[in-house]
């Protein structure tokens, strides 16, 4: 699916200016020169010159930080100290020593992040597929609905967070207003109750990100040939059978992609809980990234935080690897 959309360039998209391109004045000589150098690529170092700026930035801001982070995690790094002694795997061992506060808070945050991922990923996949199925066939106002469902995704995370904190305010938020004024129930203190504090985070996240997945599913549905459904109708297939044996299997590549990116996005939970619950009550919604940044920037424990970041990166590796595989398959032009 992905490769197909990348590969094809409709011929009508070729602008005339490009077709009638000519470089006046210096037609003959450079051609000869290039022929003599033996190849249309030009000079042998030309491609490397193109790559140079990117590779320099890549080495400085992508490759080097990985090694530097590893280095920091193996030393006792204090911004103010004169010496930064080598401590080996001490900060990694701390994470497996139940006596340390680091291990307690880190694994607590991992549990929270895992819980959030476990709840939000099926919701985000199922609900977005449902929306896409509702919107796929033509209907009055289709473009309007699509815009409405996508719209929350353009809001920035702090806006989304403040909005949902207000929606679920313990006393007078819209949710509690509906409970008290319309349903005659007691207000529920969502934000300060352990467990319930996840409700605004998860509802807010679904509201915020569902449009992305829906759009991907709509594109996937559009790529399924109508003839399959016509053939199934001839055979008297029920709507469920058509979904089960045509739509769902043919959407598998989209679902895999949506699954991997949604898991990765959920793992990297940060802004929503920071703004909505500040990680509370009692650290029950504190995400791993929030705890790592707290350890680094509030406690100035850069080494400990780096060690956690690597542990967390390792935990994500299976999903980042899957993401890489999807792109690699695309890059090779398969699938």
């Amino acid at each position, binding site marked *: 699916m992905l490769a197909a959309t990348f590969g094809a360039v409709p011929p009508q998209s070729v602008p005339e200016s490009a077709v009638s391109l000519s470089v006046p004045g210096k037609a003959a000589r450079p051609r000869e020169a290039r022929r003599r150098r033996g190849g249309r690529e030009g000079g042998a170092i030309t491609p490397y010159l193109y790559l140079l700026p990117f590779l320099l930035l890549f080495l400085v801001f992508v490759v080097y930080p990985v090694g530097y982070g590893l280095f920091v995690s193996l030393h006792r790094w204090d911004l103010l100290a004169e010496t930064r002694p080598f401590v080996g795997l001490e900060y990694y061992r701390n994470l497996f020593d139940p006596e340390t506060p680091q291990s307690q808070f880190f694994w607590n945050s991992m549990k929270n992040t895992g819980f959030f991922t476990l709840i939000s990923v099926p919701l985000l996949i199922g609900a977005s597929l449902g929306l896409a199925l509702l919107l796929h066939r033509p209907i009055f106002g289709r473009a309007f609905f699509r815009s409405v469902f996508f719209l929350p995704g353009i809001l920035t995370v702090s806006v989304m967070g403040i909005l949902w904190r207000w929606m679920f305010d313990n006393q007078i938020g819209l949710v509690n207003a509906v409970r008290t004024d319309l349903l005659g129930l007691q207000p529920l203190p969502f934000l300060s109750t352990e467990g319930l504090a996840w409700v605004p985070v998860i509802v807010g996240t679904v509201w915020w990100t569902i449009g992305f997945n829906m*759009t991907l599913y709509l594109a996937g549905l559009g790529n399924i040939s109508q003839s399959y459904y016509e053939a199934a109708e001839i055979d008297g297939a029920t709507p469920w059978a058509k979904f089960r044996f045509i739509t769902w299997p043919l959407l598998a590549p989209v679902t895999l992609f949506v699954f991997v990116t949604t898991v990765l996005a959920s793992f990297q939970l940060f802004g929503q809980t920071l703004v909505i619950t500040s990680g509370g009550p009692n650290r029950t919604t504190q995400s791993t990234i929030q705890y790592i940044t707290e350890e680094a920037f509030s406690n100035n424990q850069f080494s400990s935080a780096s060690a956690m970041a690597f542990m967390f990166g390792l935990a994500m590796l299976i999903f980042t690897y899957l993401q890489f595989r999807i792109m690699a398959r695309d890059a090779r032009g398969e699938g």
Partner: protein
Amino acid sequence: MAAPSTRAGTLPETATTRPPRRFRAPRDLPRFALLCVLAIIFLAPVYWMLATSVKPEVDVISTPTQWIPANPTIDNYREVLTSPDGNILRWMWNSFFVATVFTVLHVALCALTAYPLARMRFPGREAIFWFILGSMMIPGIVTLIPSYLMMIRFDWINSFHSLIWPGMAGAFGVFLLRQFFLGLPRELEEAARLDGANSLQVLWHVILPLSLPSLVTLAVFSFMGSWNNFIWPTFVITDLDKLTLPVGVNTFSQRYVTDYGKLMASTAIASIPVLIAYLLAQRYLIEGLSTTGLKE
């Protein structure tokens, strides 16, 4: 709804004569009603944001709840725009400036990088490409702390440099453009070569004009990514005047805590330019997302 079962070999009339996928009002009514209900649920928080933002403080906390603002006022907006705790319009400008500079440089850099990777043959091409693509496996959190320490050493804390350069060598843009360049027909490039164009001229006059859709897609994603970046600027920018919009709005959230009239006015102000841009450019955003099948 299922088509009546037919004997093998006989096509039912309807399957061939009925135009497929047309809106049929009576049958689609429940679906339409469901979509309307969902749209109302999706828009309710946005309505509540706007309604709260124009209420005086007493009306925000009054019970029973005021569903429609009874005494609309722009006081919240005035107070937010003149707040001594930070200039929200300044933050908006900062975000716009950083995102624009980042986007222009990033798209140009990715085009320069993707071009030889897609269109030239040279030793090490595959190795370099896979090396770059492999970096997609590194989650941002792994490089966050060392990058921060580097920013201290570069003296880039509280400088826009820290918001522009570290994300510049992103592999995704190179991947996206390389894939698109690979699909372009060779003939035009060869014709230009025969006319004596050098490789830079080929890139500029042939490749880039043909690649506008993918360049626009990359530009939209880059701009949104930079504009919405939250974790990184939270830690590298602390100077109130240099904050970006998402981080600045979050400082309001911590300062005004439950003063929701002001908070909703600030979130509304922060969302207005984005909403306008979305209404104007949603085609590019949604189509870009659909055709690349990739999100940030």
